[in-house]
C-alpha cells in the first residue's frame, strides 16, 4: 500500500504541475498506518459521530492525504489526477466541505493542532470515545500557535489527542536546524506535559505500537516520527528542492521505476 500511495503522489503532482511531493513521501507510512490500521472510520459514512478525527496540520502534503482517502474508499482513485485543477474537489491544500473525509481546511501552517484540541474537547463534552489524530510538520513547530495548543492540551488533559510529528528535518529553505533550530524537540514537548514517543517514521510496526501505547496513556501524546524527506525515491531523498516542486517528465519515469523495483 505504501508503494501504491507513493506512486499516486508522484503521478498526481506531476499531472498537477506543482505540489509538495517531498513531505508527502516522508509521511506515507504514517498516513497508511492511520488510515488502514489505527483509525476507526467508515469511508461510506464520513460523518459518522464515532469516527476518529484526522487533521492534516501540514496541509501542503495534501497529495498523500488525498491518496490515502481515495485508497480508503472516500472517493474514486481516478479523481486523484484532478489535483489542483480548476473545479476539482482536490484543492492544492485541503478544503473542508468539498471532499468527504477532510475534517478541516488547512494549509496555513501551525494551526491544525489547535483545531485538533477543539475536537478532542468536543469528544469529552459529548461523552464520545473517538480519538483525534493530527499530523504536524517539523518546520511548522517554529510557529508559536503550536505551543499555545500544546499548553491547552495538557492543561485540559486531552487523553484522546495524538499528534504525530513528521520529523524529516527539512523545510522550504533547507535544514530545520539551520533555518530555525527546533531541538531538543522531545524535551520541549515533555516539558509541555505531553507523552513523547519516538519512532522510525518509515516502520509501520513502530508507528502502530506507538499509537496503541498512547491509547492507555494519560494526557496528550506526541509521536515524533523520524523520517526522510522524499523517502522511496533516491534522488528526492533529503533533497529540499522537492519540498515544493514536482517531478519533470524524466524524473517521473525514474521515480516510478524505482518505486516499482522496491519491495
Amino acid at each position, binding site marked *: 500500500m505504501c508503494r501504491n500511495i507513493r506512486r499516486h503522489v508522484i503521478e498526481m503532482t506531476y499531472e498537477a504541475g506543482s505540489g509538495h511531493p517531498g513531505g508527502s513521501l516522508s509521511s506515507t507510512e504514517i498516513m497508511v498506518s492511520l488510515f488502514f490500521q489505527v483509525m476507526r472510520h467508515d469511508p461510506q459514512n464520513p460523518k459518522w459521530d464515532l469516527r476518529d*478525527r484526522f*487533521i492534516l496540520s501540514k496541509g501542503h502534503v495534501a497529495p498523500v492525504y488525498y491518496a490515502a482517502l481515495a485508497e480508503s474508499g472516500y472517493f474514486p482513485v481516478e479523481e486523484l489526477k484532478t489535483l489542483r485543477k480548476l473545479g476539482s474537489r482536490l484543492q492544492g491544500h485541503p*478544503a*473542508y*466541505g468539498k471532499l468527504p473525509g477532510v*475534517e*478541516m*481546511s*488547512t*494549509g*496555513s501552517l501551525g*494551526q*491544525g*493542532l*489547535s*483545531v*485538533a*484540541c*477543539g*475536537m*478532542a*474537547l*468536543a*469528544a469529552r*463534552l*459529548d461523552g464520545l470515545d473517538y480519538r*483525534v489524530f493530527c499530523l504536524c510538520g517539523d518546520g511548522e513547530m517554529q510557529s*508559536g*500557535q503550536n505551543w*499555545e*495548543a500544546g*499548553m*491547552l492540551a495538557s*492543561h*485540559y488533559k486531552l487523553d484522546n489527542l495524538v499528534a504525530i510529528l513528521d520529523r524529516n528535518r527539512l523545510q522550504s529553505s533547507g535544514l530545520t536546524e539551520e533555518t530555525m533550530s527546533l531541538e531538543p524537540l522531545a524535551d520541549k514537548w515533555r516539558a509541555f506535559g505531553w507523552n513523547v514517543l519516538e519512532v522510525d517514521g518509515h516502520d509501520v510496526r513502530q508507528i502502530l505500537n506507538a499509537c496503541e501505547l498512547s491509547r492507555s496513556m494519560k494526557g496528550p501524546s506526541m509521536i515524533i516520527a523520524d523520517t526522510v524527506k522524499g523517502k522511496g525515491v533516491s534522488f528526492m531523498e533529503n533533497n529540499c528542492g522537492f519540498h515544493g516542486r514536482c517531478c519533470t517528465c524524466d524524473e517521473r519515469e525514474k521515480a516510478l521505476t524505482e518505486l516499482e523495483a522496491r519491495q
Partner: protein
Amino acid sequence: MTTAAQRSYFGKALVELGRARQDIVVLDADLATSTKTSDFASAFPDRFFEVGIAEQNMIGTAAGLAACGKTVFASTFAVFATGRCWDQIRQSIAYPGMNVKVVSTHCGISVGGDGASHQALEDLSLMRTMPNMTVISPADAEEAFKATLAMADWHGPCYMRMGRADFPLITGKEDEFQIGKANIMKEGKDVSIVATGQMVALALDAARILKEGGVNAEVVNMSTLKPLDTETLADSLARTRCVVTAEEHSIIGGLGSAVAEYLAENENYPLLRVGVKDSFGESGTPDELMHKYGLTAENIALSAKMVIGKKTKKRKGFLWRK
C-alpha cells in the same frame, strides 16, 4: 436617558442560550470578566473553556469544537479578536464556514484610558473583507442581547463588536432585530444619517439638533454591516438623496466604506463619512476622546448640513469641485 453596557447584556444572553441549548460552548482568552463571558462560565463551567492569553489557539480550538457540532462563541477585546488572529479566523473559521461567533468588546475610541493599543478602529474593516463572514454592530445593549440570540440561530461564521462603556438604550425589548436588516429609527426627508453602534444614539441627537434648524433628517440603524441592507439604504436615499455615515471606527473599511461602495456602483448621491480619520486613538476619558476625534452629535449635524449643500449644488448643475 438610561444607559447600559452591551457586554453585560451579551453575558446575560449567553446564559439564556446556555440554558436553552446544550450545543452552546464559550471560549475566552483571560478577559472573561471584562467580556462578561464570566456569567456563562459560572452558570455552565463544563461548557466554558479558558484558553489563557492565546487568542490564535482560541480561534483554532473554537473551529475544532464547531466542526464537531458545537455552536461556539469566542470572545476577547476587538484588537486581539480581529487583528492578532485574523489569519486563524480566515483559515479555520471563514474558509471552512465553521459555526463560530467571534464576539468582541472594547471597540472604538470610547475604550478610554487604555489608549490606542486597546482601541479597535479597524475591526469592522478586517472582518468585512473576509468571505463567508457576517458582521454585526449593535446600537445598544438591548440589540446586543438580541443579536447574540440571533447569531446562535444563524448558521455560519459571525463577528459582533461591542463597546466597553455604557451606551444609551435607544431600542426597546419589543423592537425587532434581524441580522441583515437595518432599522429606520426616525423618518426624515432631507438627509439620511446611516449609523452603527453607539453612533446611532448620537445620530438621533444630531437629528434633534438639525430639526431646530429646520432640517428633517432620517436616522438609519445599520446594525449589520455585512450583508449590507442595501434595500433599506436605497429606500432611504430615494427620499433624502444624500447621506452621512457615522461609526466609531476608521472611515476606511467600515460602514462609511460599505455605503460608499454601494453608492459608487448604484447611486449618484453625495456622501460624507463621520468616523476616525485614519489615525490611532490615545488615552483620555471616553467623552474627551469622542469630542477630540469628532464623534459627536454636533459633528454629525454639521456633516449633514454640508452634504445637503452638496446635494443642492449638484441638482442645480454646478460642479461641487472647481
